C-alpha cells in the first residue's frame, strides 16, 4: 500500500458552552459538546472516501477541522506526511493550495457582491499567482484562467462578469467547484456538494466531479447524508454516529454486507425509487439521536441499537431486552412520570399492583416473562414512591449491557466495525472505560 495522502488520528473537536467571561464570573461550569470524538482514518491518493451520517453526527465538523478551518481540540492530521495542526502560517498557506473544500449551500458559498470572475480568481489573488504571467498582465492572466476554469466546469466564459444571483443552484455549485480548482489542489473536501440540488442537477454535478477526478487525479473526501450518492461515487465509506466512526470499509462490501447495526439500519431506512419499495415497512430505529452534550456511555449507539447485547448470565430474547433498555433510557431522560401513571392506572384498584401494571403498559413495549418480568416489576415498584433512582439501580444491576460499560472503536482492518458483536476479532478495538470521564472545567 502506498502512503496515504491524508491520515487522521484520534481527531477530536469539542465545543464548549457556557464558556463566556460572564459564565466564568458566575462560576458556571462549561459544558462540552463532543462533535467529533476521537476518529481515525486514512485517505489514499486518488481515492474518494465517503463520510456519511445523519445530521449532527460530526461529519461536516470533521471535514472543516481536518482542513483547520476550525481548530481541533485533540488528535493529529497528516497531509503528505506533514502535521497540519502544527503548521506555521506560511506552511498553512501552502497547504491551502493543496487542500480545498466545496460547500453544501450554493447560495451562501459565493459572495453576493463579487462577480463570478472575481470569485474564481480570488484564490489566485490571495496567493499572488501567477508568479510569471508571461506577456500578459497578472490581471489578464487570472481572467483567462477564470474563463478556462468556468468552461472546465461546464459554464460559458461569457458569464464571467455576472453576479451569483443570476445563476441557478447547480450552476453556482459548479462555480464553487471552479474556485476550488483554481489553485490546482490534490485533495478536495466535498461537504455535501449535491445535497441542496435537485436530482437531475445533482446527477450533472456528480458526473462533473467524477470526470474531474479522473482527469486531474484528485483525491476526495465526500461528506454526505445521502447513501445512494455515496454508493455511487465513493471507493470507501466511513459511517459516523454521534462523533464516532462506527464502520469503515470498501463501498460495495459495506453496502452489501454491513457489519454495524447502525449501518444496517441506515441502509434499511433509505427509500428506494423502485416498485419493489411499494408498501415496504421499515423496522425503523426507535427514538432520536442522543445529544452530543451528554452522549450515552460505552457504545454511542446502544440507546437505539436493535442488537444491544444482554449480559451473559441473562436469558432474554432481543425484543424484550430492547424494551427493558428503552425503559431504562426513558428513566434517564425523565420520560417516566409516576404522577401520570397514577392518573391513568385502573381507578377501581388504586394500589401498587394497578400502578405497576399501568407502568408496564405504558413504558415496556414487549411481553416479559419469568425472572425478567419480576425484576422489572420490582423496579417499577420503587416508582410507586417516586424513587426513580432506586428503579434505575435495580434495573441496572440485572440488565447492564457490555455495550454501556465499554466503548468500542474501529479496529485496524480493511473493514472494521465499532461494535461489541465483533469482539474478539480485529475489527473492533474496545476501549475499556466504565463511563466517559466528565470534562472538568479547567481543561
Amino acid at each position, binding site marked *: 500500500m502506498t502512503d496515504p495522502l491524508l491520515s487522521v488520528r484520534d481527531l477530536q473537536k469539542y465545543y464548549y458552552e457556557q464558556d463566556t467571561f460572564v459564565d466564568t464570573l458566575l462560576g458556571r461550569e462549561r459544558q462540552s459538546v463532543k462533535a467529533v470524538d476521537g476518529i481515525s482514518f486514512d485517505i489514499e491518493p486518488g481515492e474518494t472516501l465517503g463520510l456519511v451520517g*445523519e445530521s449532527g453526527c460530526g461529519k461536516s465538523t470533521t471535514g472543516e477541522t481536518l482542513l483547520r478551518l476550525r481548530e481541533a481540540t485533540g488528535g493529529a492530521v497528516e497531509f503528505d506526511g506533514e502535521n497540519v495542526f502544527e503548521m506555521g502560517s506560511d506552511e498553512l498557506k501552502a497547504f491551502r493550495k493543496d487542500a480545498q473544500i466545496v460547500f453544501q449551500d450554493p447560495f451562501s458559498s459565493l459572495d453576493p457582491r463579487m462577480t463570478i470572475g472575481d470569485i474564481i480568481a480570488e484564490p489566485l489573488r490571495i496567493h499572488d499567482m501567477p508568479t510569471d504571467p508571461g506577456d500578459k498582465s497578472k490581471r489578464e492572466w487570472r481572467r483567462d484562467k477564470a474563463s478556462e476554469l468556468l468552461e472546465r466546469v461546464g459554464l460559458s466564459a461569457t458569464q464571467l462578469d455576472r453576479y451569483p444571483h443570476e445563476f441557478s443552484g447547480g450552476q453556482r455549485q459548479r462555480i464553487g467547484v471552479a474556485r476550488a480548482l483554481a489553485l490546482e489542489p490534490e485533495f478536495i473536501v466535498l461537504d455535501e456538494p449535491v445535497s441542496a440540488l435537485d436530482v437531475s442537477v445533482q446527477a450533472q454535478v456528480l458526473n462533473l466531479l467524477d470526470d474531474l477526478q479522473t482527469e486531474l487525479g484528485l483525491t476526495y473526501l465526500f461528506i454526505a447524508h445521502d447513501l445512494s450518492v455515496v454508493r455511487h461515487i465513493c471507493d470507501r465509506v466511513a459511517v459516523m454516529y454521534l462523533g464516532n466512526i462506527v464502520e469503515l470499509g470498501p463501498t460495495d462490501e459495506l453496502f452489501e454486507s454491513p457489519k454495524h447495526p447502525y449501518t444496517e439500519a441506515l441502509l434499511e431506512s433509505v427509500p428506494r425509487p423502485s416498485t419493489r419499495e411499494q408498501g415496504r415497512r421499515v423496522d425503523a430505529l426507535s427514538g432520536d439521536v442522543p445529544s452530543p452534550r451528554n452522549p450515552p456511555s460505552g457504545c454511542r449507539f446502544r440507546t437505539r441499537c436493535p442488537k444491544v447485547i444482554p449480559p451473559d448470565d441473562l436469558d432474554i430474547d432481543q425484543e424484550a431486552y430492547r424494551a427493558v433498555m428503552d425503559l431504562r433510557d426513558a428513566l434517564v431522560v*425523565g420520560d417516566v412520570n409516576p404522577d401520570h401513571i397514577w392518573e391513568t392506572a385502573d381507578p377501581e384498584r388504586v394500589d401498587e399492583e394497578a400502578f405497576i401494571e399501568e407502568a408496564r403498559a405504558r413504558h415496556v413495549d414487549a411481553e416479559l416473562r419469568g425472572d425478567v418480568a419480576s425484576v422489572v416489576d420490582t423496579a417499577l415498584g420503587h416508582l410507586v414512591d417516586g424513587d426513580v433512582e432506586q428503579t434505575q439501580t435495580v434495573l441496572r444491576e440485572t440488565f447492564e449491557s457490555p455495550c454501556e460499560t465499554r466503548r468500542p472503536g474501529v479496529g485496524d482492518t480493511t473493514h472494521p466495525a465499532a461494535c461489541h458483536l465483533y469482539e474478539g476479532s480485529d475489527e473492533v478495538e474496545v476501549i475499556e472505560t466504565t463511563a466517559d470521564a466528565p470534562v472538568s472545567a479547567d481543561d
Partner: protein
Amino acid sequence: MADPILKIRDLSTSFFTEEGKVNAVDSVTFDVEDGEIFGIVGESGSGKSVTALSVIDLIDSPGRVTGGEVWYRNADLAEEFRGSRPEAVDGDFVDVRRLPKGVRRSLRGPSFSMIFQDAMSSFNPSITVGEQIAEAVEVQRRARANPRRTRSRTQGYGLGSAILDTFLPNRDYVSNESMDRAVELLDQVGIPDPEDRAEEYPHQFSGGMLQRAMIAQALAGEPDILVADEPTTALDVTIQAQILNLLRDLQEQEGMSILMITHNLGVIARMCDRVGVMYAGEIVERGPLGDIFENPVHPYTQGLLGSVPDIDDPSDRLEPITGNVPSLLESEMPDACYFADRCPKAMTDCMTRIPEYDLDGRHSVRCVLAEREYDEADALEQEVMADD
C-alpha cells in the same frame, strides 16, 4: 372503483410578481381516491407545493388560483348547497372553489388538513405544543357546536386583547377537554410521555418529535384528506422511516386519503399508490406507481428516474437531464412542450402545446410519444444551449 374523494380539474395558479405573471400551476388534473396515498413528485420550482396549497385554498398574495375546479365528495355539503348554489354541486361532489369563503375556511380541519416540511416554523415558539394542538381541537369542537362561526386566537387583535393575553395567557380559550384530546393525539403519533411533552415548547422538541406533533395537530379535525408537503425532507433517513411508518399507520387507522408532495422518488415509491410527475407547473405524467416507475412514457419521467443513483446497484454513470429547470414567467414560456428544450427525444411535433393523452384509462401522459414512436428524421434541431 368507488368515487374518488377529490377530483382536481384544470387547476391553475399564478403569481403576479414585478417581473411578470408566473404560472406556477398550469391546468393540473388528478383524482385522489378514498383511502389512497396520491403522490406528486417534481423538482424545486415544478409547482408541486403550490398545487398542494391551491387544493386547500391557502394561496396568498401575490398568488391567486386563476382557474379550475376542486371537486370534493361530501354528501352533506352537496345537499346543503344544491339549492343555493347549484353550479357548485354535482351529485355528491361540491366544487370547493365555488363555495362561500366562510364555508371554505371551515373545511380546513375536518376535511382538509396539511403538514409542512418545516415543523419548527409551523409552531408558535412562545406557546406550548400541547396548547397549540388543543387549540386546533378547540376550533373543531366549536365549529361542530356552531358551524360557520369559528374563531381562533389569531383574531384577538388589539391592545385590550394583548393586555388580557399577557395576564391571562389561557383566557378560557382552550378547554380541559381539548387539552386532554391533545395529549391523546400526541400519544397517538408516538410521542413518549405525552402529558409532560404537551407542556413543553417547540424548541424543546427534536425535529422528528416536532414533525410528529405537527401531524397530531393536523389530525385534530379528523380530516378526510391530509396534504403532506415534503413531510420528511428536513429529516434524517432513520427519522424519515419512523415518520413514513407513522403516516401509513395513521392513514390505515383513520381511513383518510393523503396527498403526498415530495421530490424524493424513494418516498413516493414506498408510500404512494398512484403518482403524478410535475414539470414546469404541469403534471406531465400520472398513473399507478408501477406504470410510472416501470414504464414511464414521458422523457422527463425517464430522465428523473435515470438521475437518481441506485443504492443497490451502482451503475457506472448517471444519465442526467441536461440543462436547468425553466423559469415559469408567462412571457418566457414557449408555445411548445415546456420540456422540449431539454428533451432528448424532442421532435418537430413538440413545437405546439401538448394535450394529455390517456393511455389505458389509468395512465396518462403529456407527450407526443404516447401516440407515435420517436423518429430521428423528425428530431428537433436543438440549439446548443448556452448554460443559462
